[in-house]
């Protein structure tokens, strides 16, 4: 495929005639403007540029882009560009490209000094905290209304959400919990084997799972699974103006959308955590019985002896707190969402980040409180 070619003709004094020939298409590559600029620099007497396109084959917007750049280069040099010799289509395209459509140019964004940027982000954080507190306040009001039987919440929605964040999460919770049980047992066994105390693997797995790991692992799974889905659902509802439609009907979106989600998750998290505990212990069992030659009866009696009811309560408290955290962060980010696809993505990401960070912080706080209470 012949590439676009450029030739220079100086037969008329003060005029540079550009002979354009061959194919001038984006795909076949275009001659560089530098050649022309070099000519302009060496011939300072040029006052106008004309064109001869007799040998031009096929061309597309690549030619127009080249010409536009040429015109820009010629402007400061006071060189006139006469487009008469170009194909009619190219002349029209050039005119279109040069036309100014926007009557009013929107005020340009100015770079702000660093102190202003810092100040603005502090204000943004303050606003965010305020809106979180507003959200929590509204949630509490909705809960009180629900207790008094005056909240407007659809039972069908609630049941569907319970199904989605309860039963539907079973397979994932099973897989992760068994694996965590296996890992805990394996790491523990390495150390305990040195003292011939393999049987205590049951204690390690049992206490770790029931007291904290079961709840944390379930919490992390549910943040990624359900928290993110809450944020995306509400975010898209925000984008589609569904939340505005609720507001103008006088229905509180917190009452109608957030409340059933929070309740469902708070209800399901302890159950999932109990199930996760069981699965973790099962994982430990596989390692103990399969690799460490501990008898099944011995493993279960050790687990029974080690895991006290206190551990179970601590685990359940964790799970309820995590349930609230996950649902609130997911729904809050969803309600806060902007009106674009990118905003939905951002709110989903930040729901997961907020959820997981808050879970870790909450675990630290609960552990400290348990330490103080001697539980």
């Amino acid at each position, binding site marked *: 495929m012949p590439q676009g070619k450029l030739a220079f003709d100086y037969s008329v004094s003060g005029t540079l005639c550009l002979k354009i020939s061959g194919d001038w298409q984006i795909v076949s590559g275009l001659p560089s403007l530098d050649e022309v600029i070099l000519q302009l620099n060496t011939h300072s007497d040029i006052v106008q540029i004309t064109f001869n396109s007799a040998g031009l084959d096929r061309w597309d917007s690549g030619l127009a882009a080249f010409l536009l750049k040429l015109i820009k280069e010629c402007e400061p040099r006071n060189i006139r560009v006469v487009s008469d010799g170009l194909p009619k289509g190219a002349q029209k395209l050039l005119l279109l490209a040069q036309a100014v459509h926007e009557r009013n140019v929107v005020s340009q964004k100015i770079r702000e000094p660093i102190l202003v940027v810092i100040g603005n982000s502090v204000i943004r954080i303050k606003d965010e905290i305020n809106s979180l507190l507003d959200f929590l306040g509204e949630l509490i009001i909705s809960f009180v209304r629900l207790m008094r039987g005056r909240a407007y919440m659809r039972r069908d929605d609630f049941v569907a959400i319970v199904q989605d964040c309860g039963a539907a999460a079973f397979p994932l919770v099973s897989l992760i919990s068994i694996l965590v049980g296996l890992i805990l047992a394996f790491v523990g066994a390495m150390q305990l084997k040195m003292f011939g105390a393999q049987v205590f693997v049951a204690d390690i797995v049992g206490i770790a799972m029931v007291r904290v790991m079961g709840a944390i692992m379930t919490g992390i799974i549910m943040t990624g699974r359900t928290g993110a889905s809450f944020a995306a659902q509400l975010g898209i509802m925000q984008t589609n*103006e569904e939340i*505005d*439609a609720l507001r*103008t*009907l006088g229905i509180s979106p917190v009452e109608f959308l957030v409340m059933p989600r929070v309740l469902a998750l708070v209800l399901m998290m302890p159950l999932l955590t109990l199930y996760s505990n069981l699965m973790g212990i099962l994982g430990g069992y596989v390692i103990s019985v399969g690799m460490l030659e501990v008898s099944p009866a011995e493993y279960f009696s050790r687990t029974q002896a080690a895991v006290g009811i206190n551990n179970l309560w601590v685990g359940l408290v964790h799970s309820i707190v995590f349930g609230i955290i996950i649902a609130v962060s997911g729904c809050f980010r969803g309600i806060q969402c902007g009106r674009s696809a990118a905003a939905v993505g951002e709110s989903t990401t930040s729901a997961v980040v907020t959820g997981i960070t808050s879970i870790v912080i909450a675990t630290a706080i609960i552990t400290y409180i348990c330490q103080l209470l001697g539980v």
Partner: protein
Amino acid sequence: MDNVQTISKPVIEVFNLDIGYGDEVIMRNLNFSVHKGEAFIIMGGSGCGKSTLLKVIIGLKEPLAGKVMYEDISFWDADPLQQLGIMRRFGVLYQGGALWSSLTLAENIALPLEMYTDLSQQRIREVVSLKLALVGLSGYEDFYPAEISGGMRKRAGLARAMALDPDILFFDEPSAGLDPLSARLLDDLIVQLCDTLGTTVVMVTHELTSIFTVGNNSIFLDAQAKTMIAAGDPKQLLKQSNDPRVVEFLTRGEKTARSI
């Protein structure tokens, strides 16, 4: 919709309204009133703040300054209970229909009825069927919003907006995204329904066909002037306005200045 009753008391009055986001004012000093039975158009170019103005009027966004009066009550100064009372009297059709995606069409329309009336489920079902029939969607009761076309969603949105037989209906660009025929049908439907029910219409649009088919009063917002630059019946504005911006808009740029 030619019988404008301008003598009656306005149902909505807007005084010295400034609207915007944060510190940025996008429209200032808006003053107009909407009378009972009127079809009031808020028009202007894209991005001039028409939808933001609508949000302020329907109580979704607080104004920077000024008042929105519903009869004798200033919406933004009223307590939440009074605001709810005002909102109860109007219906809104959003740009995309804004149907609740997890509910069927029947459930969408039933929701406001369940919320504000004591009707039995059976009666609600009957009212829902009637409203769907009015917008030509009989038999679509159990469809989800995702299962119907954009035009049908708009009509279902209209049925929901009319669920409680509101005094005022607000429309945010009702014909946006519809083919010319569906847009025309929707406009005709709005005119017919409102004529029959005596509903006041406030419509945000930049579609000339809608403006001339539906409207009998209007304001024209201009992004550069940051305020309204014309008011009145759009058909009269087309004939009489001397403002080149208004004429240019109403004639699709065919006439830039009227030869006087």
